[in-house]
């Protein structure tokens, strides 16, 4: 029997960004970069672990907007097209660097990686990444959990129970469509919780959720086991708290592994380093440079001077960091077990995109961590929270504290000078959606009206995405976030007026549907 457990949890999320009205759109790159650098490497890692018979457990949220993008044929086409262009660039790079062995090797490294991505995406998974992840869940090594339907910040809609319920129920239904079963866990958007939220989770049969450490530590009453055991909320769903120590080892910008000088530097990118005319076909159509993903330098140090990246050295470094992480968890769990007298669980949640996209060697680190944990120690086991709850079904009852995992631990990232203006509009749209649902839920609306109601709910949900407020707060790409918020609200308002007047403009509705084909079978009655 192990002395305790470690639950690695990756939160994979991107806002729904899809622009059929443009031939290319920079913000869609978030998705394409994440496929190449995070989702495919994680899938590749799991393929390898399963192939080699390594026992491992991983938990991942795949949010509904991300799943919708993964399943979208237009975005799939554009991803493949972008991959082909990058392959063309790497072919040119192989030629350009032919006299420079260091950069020649790096050009080949990217050429091979991108070829591998194309093979995985097009041939192995036939563009179906949702299906690829589902396969690992069905194999029992990956637990996929859900999230809010559009990553809406739930505490700031608590006055409108129907809105909170819609975020949970629509996500649950979407999960069923994607994965053929019900979700057992949820990543609350931004880990944002307020007492009472668990009632909506109970209604959706969601058994557990994750909070930042202080959400659990400041529970009422005080949790006897700190964050090293879940607490059952009064309604039944369990709250797991984030472990501070393991988070810090990976997350801390100063002390964390990703800042190591041998790891790949995120910012030095061919899109900015190469001569303009040469790189011109691979940057933005308007001539602005952008990241290509071909990055030839390592972090090196804190100065602008950068040395060429050495993938084999970075790999060794990732293995050594995985060993260090495992050693620290062993010591931590030995100590906790002595103190607690029961098996502790150490919950390690991270943004999935940290692994691979920001921290290029992150998937390698995870791969080594799973392998070393399986073979090099016996102190702890990897586990998913659902498995933990199945094995350990007796826990303390407590009400967690209102909290989020954002800066300062509460709502201040999503409610401050730059973004507070959105809430009167979001709330008004919510009131109106509830009004519409109440008015029509007992009728059989004709087909066009039904479509309009569904689209109105979609626009509201998309406007609620916490990503827009986050971007407004962080200060760049703000015009995009502002425009997305306004556009969804303005589309909602126009649909609302048309529905009430029973004069739905089909061309306008068709345009809205064409832009935002998410939650195709959404039931707007959830707002009733």
């Amino acid at each position, binding site marked *: 029997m192990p002395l305790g457990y470690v639950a690695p949890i990756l939160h994979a999320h991107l806002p729904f960004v899809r622009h059929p009205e443009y031939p290319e759109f920079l913000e869609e790159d978030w998705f394409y970069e994440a496929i190449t650098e995070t989702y495919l490497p994680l899938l590749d890692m799991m393929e390898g672990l399963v192939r080699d018979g390594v026992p491992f457990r991983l938990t991942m949220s795949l949010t509904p907007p991300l799943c919708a993008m993964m399943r979208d044929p237009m975005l799939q086409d554009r991803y493949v097209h972008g991959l082909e262009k990058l392959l063309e660039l790497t072919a040119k790079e192989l030629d350009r660097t032919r006299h420079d062995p260091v950069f020649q090797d790096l050009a080949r490294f990217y050429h091979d990686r991108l070829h591998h991505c194309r093979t995985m995406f097009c041939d192995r998974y036939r563009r179906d990444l949702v299906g690829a992840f589902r396969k690992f869940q069905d194999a029992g090594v990956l637990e996929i959990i859900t999230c809010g339907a559009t990553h809406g910040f739930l505490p700031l809609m608590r006055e409108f129970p129907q809105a909170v319920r819609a975020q949970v129920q629509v996500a649950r239904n979407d999960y069923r469509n994607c994965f053929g079963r019900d979700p057992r866990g949820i990543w609350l958007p931004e880990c944002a919780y307020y007492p009472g939220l668990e009632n909506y989770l109970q209604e959706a049969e969601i058994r557990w959720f994750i909070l930042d450490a202080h959400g659990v*530590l400041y529970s009422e009453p005080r949790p006897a086991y700190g964050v090293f055991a879940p607490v059952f909320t009064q309604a039944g769903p369990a709250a797991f708290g984030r472990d501070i120590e393991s988070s810090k080892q990976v997350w801390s910008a100063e002390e964390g592994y990703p800042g190591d000088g041998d790891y790949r530097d995120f910012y030095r990118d061919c899109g900015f380093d190469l001569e303009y005319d040469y790189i011109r076909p691979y940057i933005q159509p308007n001539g602005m*440079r952008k990241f290509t993903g071909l990055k030839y330098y390592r972090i090196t140090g804190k100065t602008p001077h950068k040395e060429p990246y050495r993938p084999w050295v970075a790999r060794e470094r990732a293995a050594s960091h995985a060993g260090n992480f495992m050693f620290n968890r062993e010591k931590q769990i030995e100590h906790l077990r002595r103190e607690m*007298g029961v098996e502790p669980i150490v919950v390690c949640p991270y943004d999935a995109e940290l692994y691979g996209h920001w921290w290029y060697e992150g998937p390698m680190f995870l791969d080594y961590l799973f392998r070393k944990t399986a073979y090099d120690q016996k102190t702890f086991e990897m586990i998913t929270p659902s498995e933990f709850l199945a094995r350990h079904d007796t826990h303390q*009852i407590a009400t967690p504290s209102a909290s989020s995992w*954002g800066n300062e*631990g509460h709502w201040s990232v999503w409610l401050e000078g730059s973004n507070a203006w959105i809430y009167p509009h979001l709330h008004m749209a919510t009131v109106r959606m509830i009004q519409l649902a109440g008015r029509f839920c007992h009728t059989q609306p004709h087909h066009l009206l039904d479509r309009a109601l569904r689209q109105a709910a979609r626009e509201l949900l998309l406007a609620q995405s916490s990503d827009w407020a986050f971007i407004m707060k962080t200060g*760049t790409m703000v*015009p995009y976030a502002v425009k997305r918020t306004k556009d969804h609200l303005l589309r909602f308002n126009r649909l609302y007026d048309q529905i009430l007047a029973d004069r739905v403009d089909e061309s306008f509705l068709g345009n809205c549907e064409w832009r935002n084909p998410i939650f195709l079978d959404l039931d707007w009655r959830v707002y009733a």
Partner: protein
Amino acid sequence: MPRPSSKTKKVPAKKIDSPKSVALKKASPRKKNDSAESTAPQLRESPLPVDQSAHKFVLQPFTPSAPEPELPAFEYLGELPESYGTRRIFLAARDPRWLYAYWDFSWQQLRDAEQESPEGKVFLQIYIPGAERVHQIQVFPGSKEWYLPVHRPATLFQAELGYYRHDGSFHRLAVSDEVLTPRDDPSPNREVEFVTIPFHYSFRQLLDLIQKQMRPGEGLAKALARLQREGFPLPFPYALRRVVPSGLADRLLEYLGGDLIRRIRVGSLEITETLRRRLLELGSSGIPSSLSSGPRGQDRSFSMHVNAELIIYGGTVPGAKVTVDGREIHLRPDGTFSYHFTFPDGRFHIPIAASAPDGLEERSVLLSFLRLTDSTPGVDPTRQPPLPEPIGRTA
């Protein structure tokens, strides 16, 4: 990439069907559950009309013969209203120390309220229900929101908007829900109550099992815990009592760092936020968004950006030594070289010299450059990669 043109810049239509009619033809109703691919209406068959202002000023040739259709009316979504005039007030506990309130009153509604009030003043008041008032702030027509320091964790607050009558009573125009500020420290309550909730039972099944025993307002876990304490027969085994080592919660808190929790909590999302912030900082000088590279502000749909970089390149025999402005530079194996740097305004004289591998012969060249920028307002420097500073600047 620019966003669609604003209302102020309509492009005259040429030949082809009006896009609205194209849209009407194409935007056919979608059947329920049809895939997005098979039914997504195609709005236009002609090239997109929205990129053209930006394309005039990029290096790539732009084909002016492309049709410039008028945008469909539904592309103009308008602006959100200043207020809806619902006379609601919303209060949120933003963190243990701050509240945030907004109210949805139009300018005229607040003006009317002022006029109704004997003092001509409308107030936002924050109070602890059943206890004292903690804030009274005069609000004016046009005001919409307020951030309120309270510095009282785990306390219930309520907000109201209104004015005082002659008799001193408060006439409420709106009142918010009650909100509770979150805790800022571990609870002093150390009561430990365990419950067994078997994972293989759904919540629905558990509720059905104990529905009749549940008390009003009692949650599922609470009710199960009570019934398990009372020895109520349930179809699954449950733990009656568990002993928690004494002082464990305190020791674990200490292990977690006590005060450190607060510090680390501030660092939640540290790396993502740091990385994003660094990216965004870079963004302010290097990474634009699709929209920021185009218009800025709400009414602009036109912009221009210009910048220059200088690339000096050439070749000699392999093994030769080349200096640029006195600095020796690295030659490629075939003897070629290039040097790439920013080219701001100024006068530059850059001597380049090569000496043969045996040091017996030399060749040199002097390149001179002048850059002077004179632009109309509204022209920004194009963002540049992190290139070396220029060399050879003389003025």
